[in-house]
């Protein structure tokens, strides 16, 4: 395959199309609800997210948020994990998890025929409101989680991602990852307590798209959230501080060095987001038309995959330039990437680059929301991060209005070289 798409980079293509009607209301439970009615296919997608991501892990208990979210369907009410799994499968429904730094939750995809839909929603309600976190399952899944951590700690890509997060977020929950020790210390009581305090309706955002009416969606959202725990008021996350520029080298026997360059950059809803999005397209977000791809890969053959992205979060989310290259040429490749970044910070995009970026982002809008599954992703982000309901409609104008000067200024504010961290795994 010619291009390896970076998953995070895809999250960034945050776009929409005029004509998608998003309805929003507050359920009587207190949960915020976002809804797009669409009867093209007999499918219903429902996502329920909570302010319960890994950033909310208590000190020393990294991994608690993730394990809590993962075990919601490991037993609930009178049903054990086998019964829940079997019932979902028998309905043709799929239940998957959301586990991010800011949010955690569940996504249900079900057939929209009344019988399947109601039964699947009843199961979703049960696992959201009455998870039992059975002791034996907690013990087993802790062991599997620890094994997965130990395995990841041998892989250069995983090590690089972990060390990069720690480097750009020193002393902040965004930089803390689960360890063998932290997961080992978790107890069933920890999970139950985390669930009770974080899985409340007030911290919940329900996103619904598909073959139901507004009235049905109102009933569904309320039913899913009315029996959630009372929970605790949301404590703000500690502020993000900027690190002091440094290079961290990690020994590893891999054939390739894995390199990240970046820093904490931008929050969701920051007015600089559009200039950063448009600018990053030319820098390293736009596949083969980006400067990083041209200089690192096309001209020099240094890497198969090279990219840059901004991943906005509740607080300053990362800016990340990533590449992998034969370890003997890591210093050369790193220099090229740094030179490309420095040049972009200095001069910003050319007129042609700016025009190309806008054209792709605006004209590609329809493609990025041409299915219910894609639209659900955007709907849930708009809801969770409290972006304007008109975000989709405004997108072309927001992108279209960006000037080269705005790009330069936004990059100057958010990507300051004195804070740039570099991580090289498998460095010589």
């Amino acid at each position, binding site marked *: 395959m010619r291009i390896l798409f970076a998953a995070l980079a895809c999250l960034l293509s945050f776009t929409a199309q005029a004509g998608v009607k998003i309805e929003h209301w507050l359920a009587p439970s207190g949960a915020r609800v976002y809804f797009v009615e669409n009867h093209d296919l007999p499918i219903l997608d429902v996502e329920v997210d909570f302010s319960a991501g890994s950033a909310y892990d208590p000190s020393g208990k990294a991994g608690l948020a993730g394990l809590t979210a993962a075990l919601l369907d490991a037993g609930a009410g009178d049903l054990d994990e086998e019964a829940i799994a079997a019932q979902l499968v028998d309905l043709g429904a799929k239940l998957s998890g959301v586990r991010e730094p800011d949010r955690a939750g569940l996504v249900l995809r079900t057939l929209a025929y009344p019988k399947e839909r109601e039964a699947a929603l009843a199961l979703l309600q049960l696992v959201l409101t009455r998870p039992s976190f059975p002791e034996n399952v907690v013990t087993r899944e802790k062991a599997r989680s620890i094994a997965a951590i130990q395995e990841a700690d041998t892989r250069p890509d995983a090590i690089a991602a972990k060390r990069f997060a720690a480097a750009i977020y020193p002393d902040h929950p965004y930089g803390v990852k689960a360890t063998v020790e932290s997961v080992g210390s978790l107890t069933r009581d920890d999970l139950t307590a985390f669930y009770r305090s974080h899985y409340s309706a007030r911290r919940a955002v329900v996103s619904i798209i598909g073959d139901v009416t507004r009235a049905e969606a109102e009933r569904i959202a309320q039913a899913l959230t009315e029996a959630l725990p009372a929970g605790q008021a949301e404590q703000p996350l500690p502020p993000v501080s900027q690190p002091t520029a440094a290079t961290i080298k990690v020994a590893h026997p891999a054939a*390739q060095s894995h390199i990240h360059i970046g820093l904490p950059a931008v929050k969701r809803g920051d007015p600089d987001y559009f200039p950063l999005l448009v600018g990053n397209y030319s820098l390293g977000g736009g596949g083969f038309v980006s400067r990083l791809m041209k200089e690192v890969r096309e001209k020099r053959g240094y890497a198969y995959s090279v990219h840059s992205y901004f991943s906005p979060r509740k607080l300053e989310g990362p800016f990340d330039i990533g590449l992998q290259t034969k370890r003997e040429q890591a210093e050369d490749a790193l220099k090229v990437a740094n030179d490309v970044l420095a040049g972009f910070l200095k001069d910003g995009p050319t007129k042609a680059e700016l025009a190309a970026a806008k054209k792709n982002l605006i004209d590609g809008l329809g493609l990025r929301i041409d299915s219910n599954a894609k639209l659900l992703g955007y709907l849930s982000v708009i809801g969770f991060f409290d972006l304007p309901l008109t975000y989709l409609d405004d997108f072309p104008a927001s992108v279209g209005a960006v000037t080269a000067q705005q790009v330069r200024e936004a990059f100057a504010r958010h990507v300051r070289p004195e804070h740039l961290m570099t991580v090289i795994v498998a460095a010589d």
Partner: protein
Amino acid sequence: MQKTLMFAALLLAGSAAFSVSANPYETRLANGLRVIVKEDHRAPTAVHMVWYRAGSMDEKDGYSGVAHMLEHMMFKGTQKVAGGEFSRIVAETGGRDNAFTSHDYTAYFQIVPNTALPQMMALEADRMANLRLTQQDFASELKVVMEERRLRTEDNPQSLVWEMLNGTAWLAHPYRRPVIGWMDDLEHMTWQDARDWYQSWYAPNNAYLLVVGDVDHAKVFSDAARTYGKIKPRALPVRKPQNEPEQTGVKRVAVKAPAKLPYLALAWKVPRLQDVDQDQEPYALSVLAAVLDGNDAARFARRLVREQKIAQSAGAGYEEIVRGESLFVLDGQPAEGRTVAELETALRGELTRIAEEGVAEEELARIKTQLIASQVYKRDSMMAQAMEIGRFEAAGFSWRDYDKVLDKMRAVTAAEVQAVAKKYFGPDSDDRLTIAVLDPQPIDESQPRKKSGGAARHPAQ
């Protein structure tokens, strides 16, 4: 996509999805190019793909990786369109493009607003016939492909196990070669090798065009005739059967690589689908794979991971829609404190159990429900619909066969599943079995692995 390149054919379980909607339209141009259009008017999108029936299985020894290398070179420009222009034009429409290579085929696609489709057809037709291949572009792109191999294979222990598994299971059959190519073959590949590949296989009579989206099929047909229709057909190289000689006895191999968890893969040679109407066993094998690992309630997850806690992970896969040969694969990682030997016994024990006790009607019903639901869900993705047509056609079947295949899958009985479990995995099954094991090595942080030999041989790069 990563899996598509490397070994999707083995990993995608038998939960193959088949279309229920009936609208694909098909025509054939005078030069032999087949054109298949599936109209889907939900959104103003068009998926445009060209598939060539030329994959790594068509390569010869010493030239492994050339099919994939040519895929990369197809973006380097033509006599009319400068290098990089193609992707730039696609990006300008708002769309994206990419390509992928497998054992069986090489495919190129663009996902664009439907108004840009005629332009995509003109560009793709142009590079079907007029690729400009230069030594300089080749040399630079070859480095990229070597980096791709380091990323996907050299530094990925499970990929190394799969490479070893295929290389061991097949002696004569070309599936023994990795799609991305051996590093040594890449080091000795020349731009003329890529050119020869292009001139041998890139012809309208060895390709088919797929369009899925908000389009008018009659317009697509006429645009295809106007663009692709101008390209002359060509006599194709002879394809030798390269049939695998009979295996006698189990094959066991080990791979040492830096890792924490061991990994185990067992692969049995089993029949592929050849005759949609007459065959029966491939459908039963496909259902067997799904009983083991087709859903969250399937046996491996339930019994081996959750109940017995023998496996950290466990999977089963069988791809019956292939040009070459099929393997039935079980794989997994032992749970903490368990050994590879215990896991092997447990994985095989599940097959034995089905051979002896059969499967429950409830399990079969579950798999059929999943098949039906997946048909509905697939309609939410134009790309998924295009991939399904492409996959069938690549293996020599027609999109017209899906409904039949779906019916056949739904008609599989518990007795048929039990019969294939007995026949192919019983006491004599060692004669079709290959076992590959990852032997995890502690990380020696001070020593780069010797495996990256490419660097040592060409330090000037």
